[in-house]
């Protein structure tokens, strides 16, 4: 039960402690991994990329982080089937690294959106959200400017048909294709979402629905 979870940190990552605490709450053992260092994937049972503004969102959100040395190790972990979870900027980084399909672009309404929203589970994930049921609703915050999920129409159909949609927005806040709030890769070990489950662990946070995304 006491999984070892590597939590990646880049310059500009700012949800690192929130993720650390959520992982710790779930009973797993979190360890921070620095972007400049590669790591031995066998030392861990899974990985999380937290939210933030890695490298100041220069070039494109997540673009520079996707090429950091730690991402070489993470790529190896992805190929070996390790569970990998990205939240917010973590989602953007995984897309830029080519580990998830699509890209995240500026919100259709142009504004940074910071609010409590509702999402609906489409498919559960073997490590991050195993107990989530199809159509189960969760409340948690979003906080992003670049959250509009973009894929070509063909690719959208492909990920929908292959059950790669992790969760969708009940009311689409940012213009995302297919109302998508989170997706998985074809192998279903890499998963990411724009909303922040780590900011919805205890009732005093306004919702504890994020618990199910961390509990194994």
């Amino acid at each position, binding site marked *: 039960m006491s999984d070892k979870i590597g939590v990646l940190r880049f310059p500009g990552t700012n949800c690192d402690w929130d993720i650390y605490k959520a992982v710790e709450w779930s009973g797993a053992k979190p360890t921070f991994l620095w972007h400049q260092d590669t790591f031995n994937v066998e030392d861990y049972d899974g990985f999380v990329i937290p939210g933030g503004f890695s490298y100041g969102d220069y*070039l*494109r959100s997540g*673009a*520079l982080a996707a*090429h950091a040395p730690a991402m070489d190790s993470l790529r190896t972990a992805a190929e070996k089937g390790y569970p990998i979870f990205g939240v917010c900027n973590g989602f953007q980084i995984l897309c*830029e690294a080519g580990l998830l399909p*699509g*890209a995240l*672009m*500026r*919100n*259709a309404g*142009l504004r940074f959106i910071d609010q409590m929203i509702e999402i609906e589970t489409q498919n559960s994930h073997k490590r991050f959200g195993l107990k989530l049921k199809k159509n189960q609703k969760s409340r948690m915050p979003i906080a992003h400017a670049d959250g*509009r999920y*973009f*894929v*070509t129409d063909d690719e959208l159909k492909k990920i929908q048909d292959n059950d790669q949609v992790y969760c969708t927005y009940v009311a689409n806040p940012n*213009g995302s294709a297919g109302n998508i709030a989170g997706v998985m890769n074809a192998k279903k070990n890499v998963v990411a979402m724009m909303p922040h489950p780590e900011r919805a662990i205890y009732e005093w946070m306004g919702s504890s629905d994020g618990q199910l995304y961390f509990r194994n």
Partner: protein
Amino acid sequence: MYKIGVRIMPRAEVLDTQGRAVGMTLKSKGFQVMDCKVGKFVILQIEGESPAHARAQATKISEDLLCNTLIETFQIEELP
């Protein structure tokens, strides 16, 4: 040493929010602007044996990092 410019633009089928916002502001100021697109311009100084070699390097760099070809296109030009 060659100076290579890489012009990166959002793909036509992708909503260019930045271009739309700039275009709307221009229209509100009374300028007759039908459409506006905003991209990026990157200038690279590249060591190369020939202009063709430098351009090939710039293409590789653009595909690898500068441009996300799912949502953007790029054009390479040699600068004086």
